[in-house]
Structures are given as structure tokens and as C-alpha cells.
């Protein structure tokens, strides 16, 4: 039974030592899959100066750092072929059954989806972000995504809004069997992010009800709606003399905040913390009783969840996937307008000052909503469905790729065919029987059994 669990390779440009939502997601998902008995490795690009080669992370997670240079925001240049030699050797050595690519801007992930079928490896893709359809960058990246997802075996999105967006961007439609109408492919799943609730416990001592602290923790950038914060904060301070702000984060809009603080003489009422490390987030959160999120776009909003878990009442703009993540009585929504945000914040201050929001109860509720073990289990269902489905042959792949369009179709088909030739060349150059296969002496079920026995003995 245990032998049938697929071995999985997580592939993304975004991984530890960088920090962020995608990085954390990959790590937590891998750790929980390992706990369930899977073999999991991660493939990402190297980080100068010395994060290179193969490393092991704590729960037994092997990470391959491929020597690729990055261009911007830790993403590698999309070039379709250079990853194949590494990919082939790693996947063959590690006896991988399934690759799981993350993030639509990660070219390593997209490339892996292109190469996987040579080795008979199945593919799953998780999309973490929302994109528009208007600007040139979106149009280009959406086309790349559509090409990569044409032959992927399953797609996972982190929210229902994210799924709608990904379905449109990646053109994940298929002709239904009975009519010519287009229906969404059945292999598009929604599995939310989760959080480690134990890391975000509410403060044990009760928050003082005299002064109400509003916490903002975000990158100080336009997309995070800092303009709204700049406009609303002085009005809130003027309306409620017992309200203070704590703002954590760094970014291009920091100057605007400094200026508004100076202009309205709010030095003692608005505390700017600068960049906050992830391990300190909880300590900052529990100082306050209201969390304010002013993002203009958000696919899941993990920061909101962390704040709600730490017992804060949340006020957020109604954008992207945010309305899906918490029940109505734990969060107040505002339109992304100055007046409406002021209204929502005033209501939140009223709720909190009346003591209608219980931090401990909120923590317990969020703990029940999301946990990583659940996410891993649901992801396993996807893996299972993918492994059981039939793999597309090369001819079907080419035909599907040609459907991309009169220009993109032939280009990607050529890439697909050249990739096959390159693979055959590599098979000749570095024959598979010469490879150094990885021997796993680690038997996870024995380990689980041993720890269980040890626990029983302790009792």
C-alpha cells in the first residue's frame, strides 16, 4: 500500500531562502506530504553566493538548487530548453512519479510541465496569483501560461476567484462531449492555502479597551492600497481619539505615510515599524485589536487569515478572493473608496470597543477552518486522480498545442518537437543506465511505527 504513494517533485522559482506566500506554501505542503508518507523533493534555482547544489531542509525535504541566473524578482528567464538536462537527470535519479509546479510567473515550473512527458511523469500546477487581461505584460504571460497549461494533467487554484481567473487566463476550456459548447476542464481544483494556527495564538493578557490599536502589515506599495490608508488614517485619528495605528512593512509608499504623519501631527498615534520579519509578525499582531488590509488585488490574503487567527477583528477591501476566506462575522468589508473604508473602520472600532469580538473564540474558529494536513489530504486526492488518468501521447499534445492560435500554436508545437529531439539527444549523450540512482534507505512507515511505539512506551 505504502509503495504506491507517488514520489513528488515540487518545482518553482520561488522557494527558501526567499520568503513569501508561495515559498511558504511549497514548504508546508511538502512537509505535510512527507508526513503522509510521500517522498518529496523541491527543485528551484540557486541563490548567490552559496545556496547551491543539494540541501536538506528539516522534515527530510531534499532541495535541488539549479545554477540558473535570475532576471527580476527571483524569476528565471523563460528559455524552454536549458532546464531539460538537469530535469531529466534529477527526475530519473529520484524515481519521481509526479511533478507539481507552482506560480504562473515561474518559468522553471512551466518548463518542467513541458518536459515531464518524456519521462512519463505526470504534472500538476498550482496558481497562486491573480492577473488582469489588459496590459502588455499580462497578455504575454497569459499566453505563456495558456501554452504551459494546454497539456497539464491538473490545475489547483487557491481560491474560487483565483480559479475563475486562471480558467480565463489559461483558456482551460474544452469542447463538451454532446454539444459544441465550451465547458471548463474537469481537472481544475480549488484547494485553499492554510496556516499554522499554533504560530498565531492570541495574546494571553487581555488587550486594553481604552486604546484601540489598528495594525497594518503589508508591503507599502500601490497594489496594497496604501493610498487608501494614507487618506483614511488621519480621518480615523480625528474621529476616534483613542485609536492608534501600528504600520509594519517597507516599500515605495513609505514616504507618503511619513508625510501624512508629519502633516497631521500623528507621531504619537501612528507607529511605523519598518520591515517586520515573519517570525515577529505574531508579536506585532497581538498588540492590536483590529487588522486593516487595504489591498487592491489579492488572490487569497494569507495575512488576513494570520491576523484573524491571532484574534484580531479584520477590516478589508472587498477584492479578489478575500470575501471567500472568512465568515461574515469575523471581517468587515469596504469598497476600495476612502469614505467606505472610513465607515467600515468606524464600525469595527465600535464592535471592538463594545467587546463584541472575542479573540480566543476567533482563534479557535480559524484553527478549525484551515490546516495544512487537510490541504495535503486534498492535494493527495488530486495526485491520485492524475496518476489514474490516462497520459496524453505526443500526437495529442501536438494537436492540443496547435489549438493555441494561428501564431502561438505553431511556435509552441515547434518548441515541443525540438524539445523531444533534445531529449533524444540527451538520452544518447548521457544514457540512463549510466546515471547514479538515488537509493532511499529511509523507510518512512518504519519511522512512523517507531515513533508511535516510542510514544506508547512514554505513556
Amino acid at each position, binding site marked *: 500500500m505504502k509503495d504506491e504513494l507517488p514520489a513528488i517533485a515540487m518545482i518553482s522559482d520561488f522557494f527558501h531562502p526567499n520568503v513569501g506566500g508561495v515559498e511558504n506554501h511549497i514548504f508546508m505542503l511538502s512537509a505535510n506530504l512527507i508526513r503522509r508518507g510521500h517522498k518529496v523533493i523541491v527543485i528551484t534555482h540557486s541563490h548567490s553566493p552559496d545556496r547551491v547544489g543539494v540541501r536538506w531542509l528539516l522534515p527530510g525535504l531534499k532541495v535541488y538548487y539549479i545554477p540558473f541566473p535570475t532576471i527580476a524578482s527571483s524569476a528565471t528567464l523563460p528559455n524552454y530548453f536549458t532546464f531539460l538536462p538537469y530535469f531529466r537527470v534529477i527526475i530519473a535519479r529520484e524515481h519521481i512519479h509526479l511533478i507539481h509546479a507552482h506560480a504562473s510567473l515561474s518559468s522553471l515550473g512551466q518548463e518542467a510541465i513541458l518536459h515531464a512527458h518524456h519521462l512519463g511523469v505526470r504534472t500538476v500546477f498550482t496558481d497562486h496569483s*491573480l*492577473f*488582469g*487581461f*489588459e496590459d502588455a505584460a499580462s497578455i504575454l504571460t497569459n499566453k505563456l501560461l495558456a501554452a504551459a497549461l494546454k497539456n497539464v494533467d491538473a490545475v489547483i487554484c487557491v*481560491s*474560487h*476567484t*483565483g480559479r*475563475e*481567473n486562471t*480558467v*480565463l487566463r489559461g483558456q482551460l476550456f474544452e469542447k463538451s462531449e454532446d454539444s459544441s459548447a465550451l465547458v*471548463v476542464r*474537469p*481537472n*481544475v*481544483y*480549488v*484547494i*485553499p492555502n492554510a496556516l499554522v494556527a499554533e504560530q498565531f495564538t492570541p495574546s494571553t493578557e487581555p488587550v486594553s479597551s481604552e486604546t484601540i490599536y489598528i495594525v497594518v502589515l503589508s508591503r507599502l506599495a500601490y*497594489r496594497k*492600497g496604501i*493610498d*487608501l490608508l494614507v*487618506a483614511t488614517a488621519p480621518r480615523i485619528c480625528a474621529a476616534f481619539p483613542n485609536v492608534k495605528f501600528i504600520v509594519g512593512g517597507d516599500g515605495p509608499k513609505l514616504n507618503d505615510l511619513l508625510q501624512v504623519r508629519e502633516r497631521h501631527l500623528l507621531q504619537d498615534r501612528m507607529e511605523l515599524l519598518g520591515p517586520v520579519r515573519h517570525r515577529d509578525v505574531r508579536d506585532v499582531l497581538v498588540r492590536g485589536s483590529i487588522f486593516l488590509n*487595504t489591498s*487592491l*488585488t489579492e*488572490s487569497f490574503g494569507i495575512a488576513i487569515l494570520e491576523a484573524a487567527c491571532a484574534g484580531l477583528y479584520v477590516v478589508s*477591501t472587498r*477584492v*479578489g*478572493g478575500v*470575501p*471567500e*476566506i*472568512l*465568515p461574515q462575522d469575523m471581517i468587515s468589508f469596504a*469598497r*476600495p*473608496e*476612502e*469614505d467606505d473604508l472610513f465607515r467600515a473602520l468606524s464600525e469595527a472600532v465600535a464592535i471592538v470597543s463594545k467587546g463584541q469580538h472575542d479573540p480566543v473564540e476567533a482563534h479557535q474558529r480559524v484553527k478549525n*477552518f*484551515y490546516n495544512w494536513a*487537510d490541504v495535503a489530504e*486534498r492535494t493527495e*486526492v*488530486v495526485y491520485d486522480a492524475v496518476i489514474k488518468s490516462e497520459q496524453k501521447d505526443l500526437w495529442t499534445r501536438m494537436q492540443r498545442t496547435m489549438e493555441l492560435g494561428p501564431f502561438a500554436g505553431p511556435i509552441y508545437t515547434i518548441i515541443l518537437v525540438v524539445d523531444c529531439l533534445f531529449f533524444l539527444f540527451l538520452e544518447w549523450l548521457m544514457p540512463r543506465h549510466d546515471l547514479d540512482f538515488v537509493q532511499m534507505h529511509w523507510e518512512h512507515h518504519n519511522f512512523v511505527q517507531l515513533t508511535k511505539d516510542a510514544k506508547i512506551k512514554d505513556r
Partner: protein
Amino acid sequence: MSSTGWKKVLWERQPFPDNYIHPHSFLSSLRRNPNFKPYTYWPLVLLSCPITQHLATIFTFLAVFVRLKERWLDARVLLWVSIASFFGGYALCEILSYSNTVNGVPSRSKTIKSSLLVFLALMGLSPVLRTLTAATSSDSIWALSACLFLLNALLADYSTLKPAPHSQERLTSVLSMNAAISSSVVLASRLPDDLAVFSLVLFAVQLFALFPIMRHRLQVAPQVVQILFTLTLCVVSFVLTVPLSISVASIYAGILIAVTFVAPGVLVWAQKYKNEIRGPWDVAVPRLN
């Protein structure tokens, strides 16, 4: 499995598989072409008039240049035409600014001072300009000037919106004007004498620096005036080119007709392919007081 119990939430485990797609709520907030205002043909034709006018001025300039080069046109005639059109255009601008109370018209003394300055500077510089690119072969000059005129036509400011008073000119329109002036300077170096160079560059300044300003002012004039003005320019450029080369003249006519009548038609036709997708994933625009 009934589809009634499904909710669009993530915090609750629902008795549906993760790939379940609710038939009614999926993509229900998708909006296609929300602010779509279809263009109609004739207003577009009217809006294309500035482009036609600009192209016609380039064609006119080229015809005049060929005549000067082949000595079919006396440079003094061109000089007087330039001066006359300057005063004519200035008077027209004055009338337009009176009738429409456009702000930001510089005072008359200032205008006269700066125009005299340009006039004298050009006169002084014309011997230099004549020999400036004498060492360059004519073929390079033709290619260079063609490229520069293309740049000029591409970057010129065809917008109909009245610029706010004292607003800065857009960079592209400044670049466009510079391209045209450079082009005329390199062309002028092929001319035989200083007077011809002087009159051609002066003419170029009229056409490519001053005329666009007047064109902007004209856009508030009644439609009949605009149409007549466009038509006059087209006819002038055509009539000036016909004696030089019938084939070139017919190409000009083809371009002008294509820009004025065919291109708007293509745009109106292409609108049926417009597919703007809007939804909750778009970056919201914050509204501040």
C-alpha cells in the same frame, strides 16, 4: 448531488469535490466590454482629418523641395509665400482665440520678437546648413529624411483634446517636430544656394512647428471649416505633385484616401472582435476624496 447547497467560500469544507464547478455562480461576476461605446463611421472620418492634414503637409513640403532643387521654383517666391502664410496663419489664430477665448496666447510683442529671432537666426545659419551634410552621399540623405518623416508622422500629436493652458507639450510631439525639422535641414543641404536653403528651412518651420499649433486651434472650429481645410491641403499637395510624377501623386492620393476613409472603416469593422474581460481579479482603482 444537489447544487443548491454550494457556497463560494473557502473556510468551510463542503460536501462537494474540489473540482466541483457551480453552474450558476462560476464566472457570474465576469463582465465583458463593460464601458463599450461603439464607434460610428463618420465621426471617425472627421477625427482622422488631422492625420490627413499632417500627411498632406509632408507631401506638400516634398513637392516644394523637389521644385527648389530642380530650380523650377524661385526661392524668393517661396520666401514671400512663407511670410504671407505666417501672417495669414497668425491672423487666423488671433481670430480663433477671440471667438473661443483660448487662454495662453503669448502677447503679440513676444510673438513678433521670437519670430524675428528665428527668421534672422535661420538667415545667418543658412550657409552653414547648406554645407552641413555636403560630404554625405545623396542616397543616405534620402533614406535619412524618409526615416525622419516617418518618425514625424508616427509621433505627431493628433489628439483632439484641447490642451490645458500652460500645459507642457508632450515629449512625443516635441520629438516629432524635431524629426521633421532635422529632416528638412538634411534635405536643404542638397539645394544649390543659400537663399533656397533659407527659404526651405523657413518653410519647414512654418509647416512642422507652427502649423500643428494652428491645427490644434482649428479643432474647435466648425466641422465645415475643418473639412474644407483638409480638402484644400490634400488638393494642394496633389496638384503640386502631379507635374512631378503621376505615379507618386497617385500613391499620395491612395494614402490620403486610405487614411481618411478606409482606416476608419477597418476600425469600425474590427470592433466586433473587441473582448475586454473584467472581473473581481482586476486591480481595484482606489477612490480618494
